[in-house]
């Protein structure tokens, strides 16, 4: 029997359709159908000014907007031959890690609901709200930040921000114990999550699976360590790895990543306290600097030649490794922008890690993948 789980289904966390062929309660075959949230972000980007693409990045992945901004910005800066100031690099690192906490809390909230727990959902959302408050205090928005700019970030951190962030980090760090009490110490949690959704390390690599799913299979791979970008080579942290490759292992990896993120945030805050400086490169061309140039004016670019370039960036986004490829042919719009979402590959591998388990296992398994349909469909 084929059943359609989605596009309107509590398990999907977004708009997509998981077609499942079941025999009794056992899954025989799956066929994910994507595209319900396809907004053509790559196409729209071709018609937009380099800075204006940033507004799309927040909407590409609506739970990890700053990480996606960062991804695009690295590629765009490489394509435009620009170098951001060091303070901006640290602020981006800080933003990435705060975003990782917020995103993982969002994942935790959605995941525990998939296994029928409502209480930690609200705990996680409450604590995520504090991180969003921090975002709001320096980017000006809670979800669509529009904070990075080609060549740096929009504005410096407000006064008192670092102290507030430290307090919030202390609070959240203490809360992680409660999360573990409600899940990891629960007998039923282990009955539900141990040994399901297993995807071996070899399958992970073959199917392009990255991020916490890959690290839960025991592969120690983290772009922040392997190819440090921004200020990640100047902060100390450990890569969270677990064995088992099942749902519990993914849970452990993400919880440990949140703890490590708190650690990184504290280090960047210390650095930011000591090193004031500019946050936007001062040698920006007029049409990229702020305030923004009228982009509709043709006369401007006709009379100038800009360097062309290609930018490729890869970022350890909360969901996994994301890549961006920006082709600059000298216009004020990028010629082609291509994004690779980690969740895209993680869902594509569903035919490897779902069959053989039960229908009731689908929510925890797909919940442990941490799906953000916005970045799959783009």
């Amino acid at each position, binding site marked *: 029997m084929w059943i359609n789980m989605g596009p309107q289904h509590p398990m999907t966390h977004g708009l997509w359709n998981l077609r499942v062929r079941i025999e009794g309660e056992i899954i025989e075959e799956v066929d994910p159908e*994507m*595209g319900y949230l*396809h907004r*053509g972000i*790559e*196409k*729209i980007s071709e*018609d937009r000014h380099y800075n204006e693409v940033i507004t799309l990045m927040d909407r590409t992945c609506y739970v990890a907007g700053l990480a996606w901004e960062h991804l695009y910005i690295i590629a765009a800066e*490489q394509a435009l031959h620009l170098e951001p100031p060091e303070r901006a690099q640290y602020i981006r690192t800080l933003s990435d890690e705060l975003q990782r906490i917020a995103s993982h809390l969002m994942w935790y909230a959605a995941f525990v609901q998939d296994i029928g727990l409502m209480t930690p959902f609200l705990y996680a959302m409450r604590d995520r709200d504090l991180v969003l408050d921090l975002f709001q205090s320096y980017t000006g928005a809670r979800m669509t930040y529009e904070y990075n700019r080609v060549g740096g970030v929009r504005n410096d951190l407000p006064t008192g921000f670092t102290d507030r962030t430290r307090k919030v980090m202390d609070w959240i760090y203490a809360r992680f114990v409660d999360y573990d009490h409600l899940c990891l110490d629960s007998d039923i949690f282990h009955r539900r999550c141990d040994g399901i959704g297993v995807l071996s390390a070899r399958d992970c*690599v*073959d*199917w*392009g*699976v*990255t991020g916490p799913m890959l690290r839960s299979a025991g*592969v120690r*791979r983290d772009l922040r360590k*392997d*190819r440090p970008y921004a200020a990640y080579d100047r902060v100390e942290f450990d890569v969270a790895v677990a064995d088992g490759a099942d749902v519990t292992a993914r849970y452990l990896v993400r919880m440990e990543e949140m703890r490590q993120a708190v650690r990184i945030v504290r280090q960047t805050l210390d650095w930011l306290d000591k090193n004031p400086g500019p946050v936007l490169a001062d040698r920006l061309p007029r049409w990229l600097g702020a305030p923004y140039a009228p982009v509709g004016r043709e006369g401007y670019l006709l009379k100038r030649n800009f360097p062309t370039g*290609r*930018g*490729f*960036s*890869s970022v350890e986004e909360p969901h996994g*490794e994301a*890549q961006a*490829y920006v*082709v600059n042919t000298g216009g004020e719009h990028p*010629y*082609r922008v*291509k994004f*690779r979402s980690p969740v*895209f*590959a993680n869902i*594509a*591998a569903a035919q490897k890690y779902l069959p053989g388990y039960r229908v009731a296992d689908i929510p925890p398994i797909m919940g442990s993948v941490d799906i953000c349909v916005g970045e799959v*469909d*783009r």
Partner: protein
Amino acid sequence: MQPDVLRERLGPILGPRLLAVEPFAGTAGRVRFAREGALELFRAVRDTLGYRHLAMVGAIDWVDHREVFYVAWSDEERDYLFLSTDLPASDAHVESATPVWPAANWHEREAFEMVDVRFDHHPDLRHLLTPDEYAFHPLLRSFKLHEPEELEVKTRNV
């Protein structure tokens, strides 16, 4: 792995089908190859060079021709490798990478529907994001976006 090393190791396998190896920031290099050698190159890159993880496949419409690019990652090198090939716009097809990297499956489906590049011997070449009967290829340059004014929604209340 430096571009010249790449050239040394891939040259004997591909011969004239290896067009160029250029340096490309953020990756080990950009390998440009002729499409006839696609499958051999993929095998060599995966098995000989150790780039076991395929990160993405994409395509660019350069109006006169189309470019298909592959990005692979090696755990040993801790680096990306960028492969690209040019296809004539009139006859844009290339061998599918799915036998080598299963991960290419969805990426190639997306490139197929968006930029109209066909992948030979792909196990399941359907549209991924757009409906099956959708007759356009949105990421071609000839596909123009509407002006916002044209999309103005008329409602009863306004």
